[in-house]
Each structure stands twice: as C-alpha cells, then as structure tokens.
C-alpha cells in the first residue's frame, strides 16, 4: 500500500461544562489505509462519534481539539485554515449520518440536494453563487438537462435506487428509510471523496435493509476506491464489513487490530463482554450474557482504566493508566494491565479462576464469556 489516507495521532477532544472538563476523546490514535473500511465500535457515550467529528472539525465552540497530528492525504488538518477545512469537507471527505430522515432537507428534492453538492465540490461548469443557488432551490429547480442534475441521477443509480430519474424528483418523505440512506450515500459520494465517515448508518434500519446497505457500501468501496470509517455499536456489523477495528470505551481506545483477531481472539475484557452480549441465533441459553452497568461520566474522569467499574478481572493496578501492549497479530494492540508481560502471573490466575467468573457474573445466570 501507498501512504495512508488518514493518520490520527494522539487526538484528545474535550468540552468545558459547568461541572468541569469533559474529555470525550482521550488520546486516540489510528491509521487508515486507502481503500480500507475501518470500524470504530463502542457503546453510546464512548466517544466514537466525537472522534469522527473531530477529524472534520465539526465540534461545538465549547470543544477543544488537541492532537499531535491529523494527517489527511498528506495534509495536516490541524494547521489548515477554516476555508481549507470547508473545502475538504464534502469534496474530499463525505459524511453519512445515522438518521437519514433528519439529515436530509425535507423541503428539497433529493436530486436537488445531491446536485448542489456536485456544483459546490465537483468539477461541473455551473455557477454556485448564493443567488443562483437560491433561485434554483426555491424558484426554478435545477434543470434536468444540467450536468449537475445528470450526475445526481447517475449517483442515485450507482447506489442502487431503482428508476433514479423519477426518484431524484422525490422529496425525502416520499422515500423509505433504506432509500433515504442510499440517497445520503449518493450525496456523500457526490464530489468523489477519498474518505467517507459513516456514523451508525444502519442502526435505524431493519436487518434486511441493513444487509442491503452493507453490501452496497462494500461495492462502492471497490467502484469509487474510497476509504470508509464505519462507526457502530454492533460488532456483528463490524465483522461483515470492516478490515480493521478500534474498540472504544469512555473516550479511550481499549483494543485495536484487524477484525478477525479482535473478534476471534479478543484480549480486552471489554471487547470480550461486547462480543458475549450479542444475542445469537445459534445459542439456546435461557438468559443472555450481560455486562451490567453504564459508561461512567466523562466529566472529571478519574485516572486509570475506565472499564474497571464493570470489569470482572479488576485488580489493584487498574487505578493507574495502562500502557498499550502488543497483541497476538501484527497490528493488534490492547490497553489493559492484564496483558502487561510483567503481570503474566496475574493473568494466569485470572484464567484459572474464570470458572468463577462464569457463574458469578450478575444477572447472566449461566452466562460467561465465550472464548
């Protein structure tokens, strides 16, 4: 592979609130290669969306982004001016949001919305001045003969919308949830971006439609040669589509590596719990395995591992920050004291006692971590 499309080094995003400083993203680093689908997984409040928004610098004015480097296509985004960032958003980086019903403009047809992006960021020879845009949007509509409209229709076709000429003239409410999400994807692709950030793009959809959208994204990766950051809370979806994955909890990276390693040989107790609690068609247990508790408050966070309050392996060391330890495969990393080579003995004891872990995990009765 050539140089990576995106390199994030030691990203920290914090917000000042009345109660104190809220650290939403805490020292996160990752690298995404060209054409890669990169997953970020974690529960609500684990900082996965803020990580993505920090890359695009779409953070509230109360927020503060700190990083050693955010290199996108060789360019450092941290030193870029507002205008340069604005040019990158949309043209080089596209965004797909979770809820297509609230992210599309309800008073414009989907074709109009996609054509607008094409005019702003694509290479069509059409004026995108303010008054021309207003006139097009609210008076005349984009001419169906114009290059931007034609491009919009061809994008809708590419994302698998049947009868795209007709659908382009529809308003968002006339489309089903799955169709709206496809239209969002078409819009993100409009300027032929290098990277698409998809923030829970299938969470609001039915399983059948989710499967369609995942297949579509994989095809588009091939066709447009685009990298994708895929954010979700479902490791099952990660396995379907991603190459590499980062597991986040309370703003921190708990474990990272290639998807197969993370799912088949997870080292961090949090990853293990996330995998264990997914209901499976194949198991006949009466009770599901659960990891009780919630993500802790990120305001005035205490030092140490944030998962220790819910972790079954918690021990003395956990109140101090853990280093990142190398895992079982090339890029596998885990941030947990249990995997400190110096604590081998500790880990051995824990594993010996894992029978105890199975029977004691609250509420899960015959639960336990499948390993």
């Amino acid at each position, binding site marked *: 592979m050539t140089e990576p499309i995106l390199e994030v080094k030691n990203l920290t995003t914090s917000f000042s609130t009345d109660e104190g400083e809220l650290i939403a993203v805490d020292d996160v680093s990752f690298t995404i290669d060209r054409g890669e689908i990169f997953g970020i997984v974690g529960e609500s409040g684990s900082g996965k969306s803020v990580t993505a928004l920090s890359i695009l610098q779409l953070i509230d004015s109360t927020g503060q982004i700190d990083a050693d480097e955010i290199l996108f296509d060789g360019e450092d985004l941290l030193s870029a001016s507002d205008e340069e960032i604005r040019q990158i958003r949309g043209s080089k980086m596209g965004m797909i949001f979770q809820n297509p019903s609230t992210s599309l403009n309800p008073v414009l047809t989907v074709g109009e919305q996609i054509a607008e992006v094409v005019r702003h960021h694509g290479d069509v020879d059409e004026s995108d001045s303010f008054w021309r845009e207003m006139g097009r949007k609210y008076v005349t509509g984009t001419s169906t003969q114009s290059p931007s409209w034609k491009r919009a229709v061809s994008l809708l076709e590419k994302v698998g919308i*049947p009868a795209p000429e007709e659908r382009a003239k529809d308003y968002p409410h006339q489309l089903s949830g799955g169709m709206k999400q496809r239209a969002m994807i078409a819009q993100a692709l409009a300027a032929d971006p290098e990277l698409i950030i998809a923030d829970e793009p299938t969470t609001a959809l039915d399983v059948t439609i*989710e499967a369609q959208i995942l297949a579509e994204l994989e095809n588009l990766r091939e066709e447009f040669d685009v990298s994708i950051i895929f954010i979700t809370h479902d490791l*099952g979806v990660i*396995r*379907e589509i991603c190459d590499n994955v980062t597991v986040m909890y309370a703003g921190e990276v708990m474990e990272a590596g290639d998807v197969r390693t993370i799912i088949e040989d997870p080292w961090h107790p949090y990853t293990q719990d996330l995998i264990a609690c997914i209901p499976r068609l194949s198991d006949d247990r009466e009770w599901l395995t659960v990891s009780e508790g919630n993500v802790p408050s990120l305001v005035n966070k205490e030092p140490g591992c944030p998962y220790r309050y819910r972790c079954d392996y918690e021990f003395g060391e956990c109140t101090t920050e853990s280093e990142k330890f190398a895992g079982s495969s090339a890029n596998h990393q885990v941030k947990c004291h249990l995997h400190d080579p110096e604590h081998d003995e500790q880990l051995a004891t824990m594993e010996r006692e894992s029978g105890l872990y199975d029977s004691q995990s609250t509420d899960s009765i015959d639960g336990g971590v499948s390993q």
Partner: protein
Amino acid sequence: MNSTIAENELDGDTVLKAENVKKHFPADDSIVDKILGRSNSVHAVNGVSLSLQRNEIVGVVGESGCGKSTLGRTLSRLYEPTSGSIFFNGKDISSLSRKEEKKLRKEIQFIFQDPHSSLNPRRKIGELIGQPLEVHGIATGSEKREQVKQLLREVGLDPGQIDRYPHEFSGGQRQRIGIARALAVKPKLIIADEPVSALDVSVQAQIINLLKRIQDDHGFSMIFIAHDLRVVKHISDRVFVMYLGEIMEKAQTDDLYDNPQHPYTRALLEAIPNIDSESNREDTILTGDPPDPIDPPSGCPFHTRCPEYIGDICENEKPPLEGATDHAVSCHWKDRSTKERLEHAPPGGTD
C-alpha cells in the same frame, strides 16, 4: 381460514384472542380518485388471527411498515379495529364505552420503543411511575411512593433516584422506567413495541433479561414486537412473522428457528449479521423494499420479492395460513425440500 388452529388454541386459559382483525387507515386521495369516487386506504393490518395464553410471550417480527406496531396498538385498543373481533379475558373489546376502556387500560399496558420521547421530560420519574397508580385508584400519597420505590428496585434502578428527571438517565435506564410504569398497575398483558431497538447491543441484553425475569416473577402475558429475530428468540414462546399486514408464518420459537418454512422468514434469518463466522451472503440478501400497503400486491403479498417465486399461482391466489397446529405457514410451495429450494430459479417476473 385457520379455524382448526383457532379452535385448538381455545383450550386452556386464553387471555387474548383476535379473529381476522383488520385495521385500515384512510389515505390521501388524489384529484382523479376523488372525481371517480374512489377512496384509498392503507391496509396496515389485513386479517390477523392470533391467540395468547396466560403467561405466554409471543413475538411478532417483520420489517418496518409490515403492520406489527399497528397490530399491537389495535390489540390493546389504542386503535379501534376496522373489522374483526378481539376478545380479552373472554370479553369482546372491539367496541367499548369510555368507562370500560379505562378499566381495560389497567389490564393491558404498553412499553414503547423510544424511551426518550415516551417519558414526559418535565416530570420526575416518581410521578411518571406513580401516575397510573393514582389514575386507577390503586394507591396515593406515601403508599404510592413506597410502591414506586419497590418498582424501581424491581427494574434494577436505585430507589434513591425517585426525584430525578428522565434526562438524568441513560437510554437503557429510561427503558427500565418505562417498564416500571407498565408494571405499576399489575397488568395481565403487556405489549412491548420494539422495546430494545433504540438501545445499544450491550443494553439490549440487559433489558431482555429484565423483561424475562419480571415476567417470571409477576406472571403476565406479553406481545413482544421487534424487527430482529435474534432478540425475539430469547424471550418468546411462539413467534409470528408478519409481512404487509398479514401473518406469513407462526410457530413455536424453537421450531421456527430450526425449521423456517416461509421464504420470508428465511430471508429475515439470513439478514442477521453473524459474528461467529465470516459470511458470504451477497446472493441471499433480500432486494427491494416492502410494497406500498395502499396498493398491496395481488395473491401472496411477498411474491414481488420472493426468491422462491414459482409462477402465476403466487400472483393470483392468496395462500392460506395452514399447517400443523403449532406451525402454520402461508405459502404455495410448502412441501419443498432443501435441495429443490436451492436449485430453484424463479421464472421471469421477479428480481
């Protein structure tokens, strides 16, 4: 249509029994329709029969727009059925006076999908959970407060949080508040409409275990509506698969998962992301969206997307829901073998 099944289900103590229930909503008519005097309607629920035993949990599964939520609301009489009859505890509830309806509300409770919009943000959770106790004259004052605390304990919340507002809780905790409120009046039937689909996977498991546990403790019947067959499996005794307002297949839970008969059921099962193995399911993905319920397809409603479409019969004739007592399926090609199924290429007309 399925009288043999219905009769069998009458044995034992049936809590709810619905016969050929339909719910149609008026749709906007176009100018042309108005001139011609036609009127359209959305066929949300189109002739559903089901019965529910005491302490039984029945899962209802289908895609968005298949009418599962409308079915839940019609059965609990939040909607009035367009036609058909609904018996609750042996009494016809298809049409009721206001007074009778209020009494029914105590017996049938609802858990909603979105815990953010179903709790009044201006009221403390103690008031929210206590309100049904007051409305139905069960408890007031300090007695009410005691009961609310007990309910909070039961759903795994700290009774000390009784004077907090909904926004101070996470999504999973809010769903617990919704469950406590439904539980407050000791209902005989709870209808849970997608209670976990808005939650994280990790929290879904917590809520499902909680619902099972309180069902064990209190003994009520439940209709559990969801679009994800994984979720339904763990909680249901029987499962109904719905498509375009009709039941496609119904069976005991184990039987349905081990031996799904309807092509639609199989498609739903195959759509589930599988974490335990690398899948290669490109060719089994169901294409397209469900058709418009204003103008449902003729014959079998699934024929436009069916991978096992066999020809004109699917388009012209609606297959009856029939089969063994506890496993019925609505399909023209039921007796096929796996081999036949895999080798089958649908004749032109579908995609």
